[in-house]
């Protein structure tokens, strides 16, 4: 049940480098009036991030992963349930692997 000192240091360092990009834009950009084009650009950021994370993660899982992600996407579109999506995708991957 112990925490190793080097593990504590690692987690704190990782948390520190994570906190900066999480907090900084909220502090700075809420003070400025953003131009319309930048707001429009920002509205596409989440879709682009999630799509690139998804394609990189899926690519490393091979054909079974690709098929199982197809199942997950279909379940997500049909149900809007994140838990359902994760369970269906993992089950499909387990069956296909």
């Amino acid at each position: 049940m112990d925490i190793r000192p080097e593990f504590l240091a690692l987690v704190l360092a990782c948390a520190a480098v994570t906190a900066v990009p999480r907090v900084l834009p909220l502090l700075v950009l809420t003070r400025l009036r953003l131009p319309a084009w930048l707001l429009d650009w920002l509205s596409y950021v989440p879709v682009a991030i999630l799509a690139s994370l998804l394609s990189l993660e899926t690519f490393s899982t091979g054909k079974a992963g690709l098929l199982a992600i197809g199942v997950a996407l279909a379940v997500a579109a049909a149900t809007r349930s994140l838990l359902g999506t994760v369970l269906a995708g993992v089950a499909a991957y387990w069956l296909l692997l």
Partner: protein
Amino acid sequence: MLGYLGIGLAAGALERAAGMSYAEVLLISTVLYAGSAQFVVTSMLTLASPAAAIVLTVFFLNLRHLLLSAALAPALRHVPAWKNALIGLQLTDETFVVAAGHAAAGLSPAWMAGLNLAAWTTWAAANLAGAALSGSIGDTRVLGFALPCMFAGLLILQLRTFVALRSPLLVAVFAGGFALLGKGLFSGPLIIIAATIAGATLGLALQRWTSARNS
């Protein structure tokens, strides 16, 4: 929101399997509190990577929060800076998608705090539960697949927030393809930033082009 439970369980099980104690699982899930980064730290620890390399990878991986945090900023401009700092500290891909869905009506600090605290405690509990189940789970590859499934679910939720689906759908396909093709050019997580900037720029161009044609 509950999709959280699924990847939290998976993360906890993998962390325990990588040799973390329960206290360490609680520490990483509450202090680092970042799903994909925890998966990366866990896998790099099992590969005996040097600490500096792990921290650098987490930094680049989580740089994408710059863009999420910036995207929430317009809805939180009436909030005092210290509250925004606390809200930002608990920003994740998952809570961002939920918050962005409510952003049109304006976000109150109390509502954000409720969302963040619920997500934070659920995440820690799911990690601990996963750690407890770790011994009874066979193939860790299958568990790790919970992460891309989560991204698939979040992507669909995010796409549904758009009135017209065509531009965001093209952005998603383009960013996903860009990430795969550019993987060799940009080291590690930097490709995520590059693909996101390219994708959002395409989205802006499509939107301008469509509205210019219609007017």
